């Protein structure tokens, strides 16, 4: 015990000396980016503009949206309301998450599309949730649908209806979710995404609490991921973040994910959605 206190004192002193020298690596001022990140972004943007394989999934999604499908043999275009009226896709993506009275819930785009597939087309939720994200040679139908719907909001401004008290409440809950530390590594979303100018390895980490950071976190989803050549949605990104956060697995299309997406997307309100992305 005596030894420990002595050690604590020594260490505390040593630490003060040490922390005086602790400077961020490759000192990047807040809000600025290093040369490598800029090079990555430049060529990713170029590829998005000059031809994005995500468009192949958009084509597929358009077919799914317009065709009569599912046990009830109904087309989503004739039955699914994404918030702007049945069948209206233009601008719908940038105005979600929003509150849907018919479901009594705030829903993000993917969750809403899944809701429509279940309620209107007669698919079983458990079937859709069994393998909800793309893998080798496999793309879930809902992923292509989200891709199609999102592409129809390209170059429109994010406008999550925060004035709706339902949406505001979910937004505030989302803000708590990103700050919540737990798990073996004590990580919250904010551990990595709560400050400007940070990276994991070479990956830039957007600060979700700022409009610019939130924007860079929501831009590019859904996106074509170069690793594995797969089409992935923002729901996937959230789930995989929790995996790397060492959390348990969030249920597919759950309230928590909607809360996160509401927080992030609304923080980017007023900024332009550039359409389908390319991701590393």
């Amino acid at each position: 015990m005596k030894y420990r206190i002595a050690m604590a004192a020594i260490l505390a002193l040593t630490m003060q000396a040490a922390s005086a020298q602790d400077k961020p690596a490759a000192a990047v001022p807040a809000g600025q980016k290093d040369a490598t990140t800029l090079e990555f972004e430049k060529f990713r943007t170029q590829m998005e503009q000059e031809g994005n394989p995500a468009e192949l999934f958009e084509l597929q999604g358009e077919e799914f949206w317009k065709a009569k499908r599912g046990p009830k043999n109904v087309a989503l275009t004739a039955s699914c309301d994404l918030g702007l009226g049945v069948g209206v896709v233009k601008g719908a993506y940038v105005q979600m998450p929003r509150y849907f009275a018919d479901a009594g819930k705030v829903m993000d785009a993917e969750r809403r599309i899944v809701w429509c597939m279940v309620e209107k087309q007669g698919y079983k939720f458990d079937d859709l949730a069994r393998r909800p994200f793309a893998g080798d040679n496999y793309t879930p139908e809902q992923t292509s649908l989200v891709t199609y719907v999102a592409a129809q909001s390209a170059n429109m401004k994010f406008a999550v209806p925060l004035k709706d008290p339902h949406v505001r409440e979910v937004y505030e809950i989302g803000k708590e979710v990103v700050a919540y530390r737990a798990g073996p590594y004590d990580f919250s979303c904010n551990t990595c995404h709560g400050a400007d100018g940070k990276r994991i390895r070479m990956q830039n980490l957007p600060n979700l609490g700022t409009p610019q950071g939130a924007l860079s976190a929501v831009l590019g989803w859904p996106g074509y991921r170069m690793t594995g050549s797969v089409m992935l949605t923002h729901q996937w990104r959230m789930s995989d973040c929790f995996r790397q956060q060492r959390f348990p697995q969030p249920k597919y299309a759950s309230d928590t994910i909607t809360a996160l997406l509401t927080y992030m997307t609304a923080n980017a309100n007023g900024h332009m959605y550039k359409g389908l992305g390319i991701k590393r």
Partner: protein
Amino acid sequence: MNNISRISLLAAALLTLVAAAHADGDYRAQALSMMKQDFVTKGQASADRISEDGLQAICNRTGNKPPPEIAHRLEADQLAGVKLPADGKLLGDWKSGEQIAQSGRGFTWTDAPGLPVGGNCYNCHQIAPKETSFGTVGPSLFQFGKLRGNTAEMQKYVYSKIYNAKSFNLCSAMPRFGHIGALTEKQIKDLVGLLMDPESPVNK
């Protein structure tokens, strides 16, 4: 300090903080119950990981800025739990340390359960100059030993910091690698070697 008194210290700190809880507590409570419902066990990532432990609870309730008097007491308490190697030797093999620093494996639902796991070091820190793909969540550790001196005290600090970073900064972003049993004594020694050994490329 024994475990019981450590727990009561945490409880006292929590009580103090709960009394000062502010209006957003309501949303936090909603967020908590939402998460408890929405997370499920997958692989080794069991659903109970969603529950916060005492230290996490204090950091969560204070926006990672606990009042200094509470923080200092709890830091000392965390430090008291650091188990230093019985043989007193802290400087391990830097080559093995480099491999541990490179690996980000461990504890996710896609990782095989069990030890050893990686140190995740390069995810957040610049370390040896050869590795240019490094994160910047934490400070640069390049030339760590050279700048600070390869002294017994500094080795002890590094070992303790890796073992439990919360011993020095209660709400540090860095995991408590030894405290949670993620890294073994040998692994932590090897990481000390990587940072402190004059022969390590970190100090060249």
